[in-house]
């Protein structure tokens, strides 16, 4: 129930390693923000600076308009869920959840009410008198969430809460976090390295790399309009295919030369390129696996490839193909769109002709890696 504002926040460790560079972000009240990025990108450090567990080297962190740089974690009115749960092993589940309330000297009957309320939502009522060691990983994580829930704090911080769970449980807990968010209706800051979690949970996603913010935007924005090559490759699974290509301006239109094929650039992409005044040049071309289509036969706009591996995922097939010059690409085809003849052809070594849906091609500057469409 509070906004969080980070202004020029930096973290420099004693050994001069800079973990976070000039971090600026306005988190609105009741927003669900996800920090995502590969390990070592500074996402957890940023979260820990908001929590007060890590000193802020420079810049300010404000919670609800109040600068909290010099406040102890206990005075920031935040709740936090840790990756390794960090349950107090000598206390029962009940005492774990009640711990913060007891420190605040809340009367026992109110504590009882709150703890049972949280336990019911999380489905851990039966385990309240157990010690953490007698619980499974999923149950422990629920207790950790319960401990944060009863606090009624301004901001709810989660540091990779699902990373220690197995895949099935992770999916289930992800859905529960969405429900939890609706119920608690407070500001969430969630750290993860998993782009699926980021896409499904966040109102806005902050994508980080090496301590820098790469892009901030809604899941749709970062997926459809990645600001740079890093975001484009990081968001989406399987990851976007990227390769060198030549963008050629021809009159008012554009086409791309790649792997000996001539691919027209039509529709909004061409207009955007023209609007940005992009001329003929080298580009790094990006195409998501689901935006590559199989062509029936060789044509001017098709690329000849050899099939290396075909992965049948059920509703779709992932085709790992290699172009004539040795570049590996991934193509994702809905199973339902494959004719029986095409299916029969999906053997290793088969020749496949592919082409791109021009509306969803991405053009990046090979030097700066910026997206040329939205720059």
């Amino acid at each position: 129930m509070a906004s969080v504002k980070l202004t020029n926040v930096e973290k420099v460790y004693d050994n001069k390693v800079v973990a976070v560079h000039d971090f600026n972000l306005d988190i609105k009240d009741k927003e669900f923000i996800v920090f995502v990025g590969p390990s070592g990108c500074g996402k957890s450090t940023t979260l820990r600076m908001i929590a007060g567990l890590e000193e802020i080297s420079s810049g300010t962190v404000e919670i609800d308009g109040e600068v909290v740089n010099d406040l102890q974690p206990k005075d920031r009115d935040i709740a936090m869920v840790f990756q390794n749960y960090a349950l107090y092993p000598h206390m029962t589940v009940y005492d774990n959840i009640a711990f913060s309330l007891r420190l605040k000297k809340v009367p026992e009957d109110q504590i009882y009410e709150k703890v049972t309320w949280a336990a019911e939502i999380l489905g851990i009522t039966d385990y309240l008198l157990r010690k953490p060691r007698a619980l499974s990983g999923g149950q422990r994580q629920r207790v950790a969430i319960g401990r944060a829930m009863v606090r009624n704090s301004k901001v709810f911080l989660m540091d990779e809460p699902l990373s220690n769970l197995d895949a099935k449980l992770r999916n289930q807990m992800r859905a529960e976090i969405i429900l939890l968010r609706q119920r608690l209706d407070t500001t969430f800051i969630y750290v993860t390295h998993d782009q699926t979690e980021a896409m499904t949970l966040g109102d806005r996603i902050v994508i980080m790399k090496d301590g820098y913010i790469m892009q901030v935007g809604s899941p749709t924005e970062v997926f459809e309009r990645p600001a740079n090559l890093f975001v484009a490759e990081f968001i989406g699974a399987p990851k976007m295919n990227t390769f060198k290509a030549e963008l050629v301006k021809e009159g008012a239109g554009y086409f791309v030369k790649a792997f000996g094929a001539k691919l027209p650039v039509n529709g909004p992409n061409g207009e955007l390129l023209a609007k940005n005044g992009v001329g003929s040049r080298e580009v790094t071309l990006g195409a998501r696996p689901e935006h590559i289509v199989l062509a029936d036969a060789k044509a001017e706009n098709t690329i000849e490839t050899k099939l290396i591996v075909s992965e049948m995922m059920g509703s779709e097939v992932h085709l790992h193909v290699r172009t004539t010059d040795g570049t590996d690409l991934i193509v994702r085809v809905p199973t339902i769109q494959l004719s029986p003849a095409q299916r029969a052809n999906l053997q290793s070594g088969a020749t496949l002709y592919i082409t791109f849906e021009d509306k969803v091609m991405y053009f990046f500057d090979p030097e700066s890696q910026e997206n040329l469409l939205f720059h």
Partner: protein
Amino acid sequence: MSTNNTSMKKHMGLKASTRLSNTAIYIILVIISVIWLIPFVCIVLQSFRVESTWKVGYVIPQQWGLDNYVKLFQTNFPRWYANTFIIALVVAAVQTVIVLCMSYTLSRFRFKLRKPLMQFMLVLGMFPGILGMIILYRVLADLNLVGANSLPGLILVYVASSGMGYYVSKGFFDTLPKSLDEAARVDGATRAQVLTKIILPLSKPIVIYTILTGFMGPWGDFVFARYVSQLKPLGMNAAVGLQSWLATDTMTHDYYTMFCAGGVVVALPVALLFMCLQRYYVEGVTGGAVKG
């Protein structure tokens, strides 16, 4: 069927070899404990001997009785015993607080001089404490804390260096996940509350170890206690007092069995303490703290 048999044979072999090695271990342990126990058994037996008070050439008393114990409490011994008890208790209490705070600080806080401080204490700890005895005596003498007044003096000296005994407990605190501290601090605990409500309950074995070592040091001290007390009866602890009975051959003649009884009385509380508290040494308490 045949595979069943082989696996059964293997199983039996494993059982038998386990049993054999266990037997060997027990035999060795029994031999060690017998050797270890002989002096204690001798002292206990001597303390119950009533037919004579001097050293004799046999171990088992010809006449048993509690005379030595009764007489013991008619001497200065109760005073010495009380002295020792007060010193040991105060030192154990103060030293435990200092050691645990010190260890927690060195384990969890990061400050500029942390490493140099630890190195400094390591080097300082390499000098034998006995080196400082003369100067400590001079200081205590100037403060009038020697002779009959030696109690507070001894407490002061025992407690003074306790901060340096942080190694074991810091080592243990280091193994407790830091995220527990962080979770508690986010939950609204102060650093002191983190120590008392989270760290200490998880460190029972170490707390008890610290109390025990704090108690045992002054309880068994002889050299320094004797030097500071200058053999003034009011300032002596039990060890110094008992030893004073064996100062000359004539005294030994009269006091030897009482000396043994005194030894038993001194050993009792420590033995009891250990018996009550030993289970904490083996209790593993961190299970379930983090994923594992």
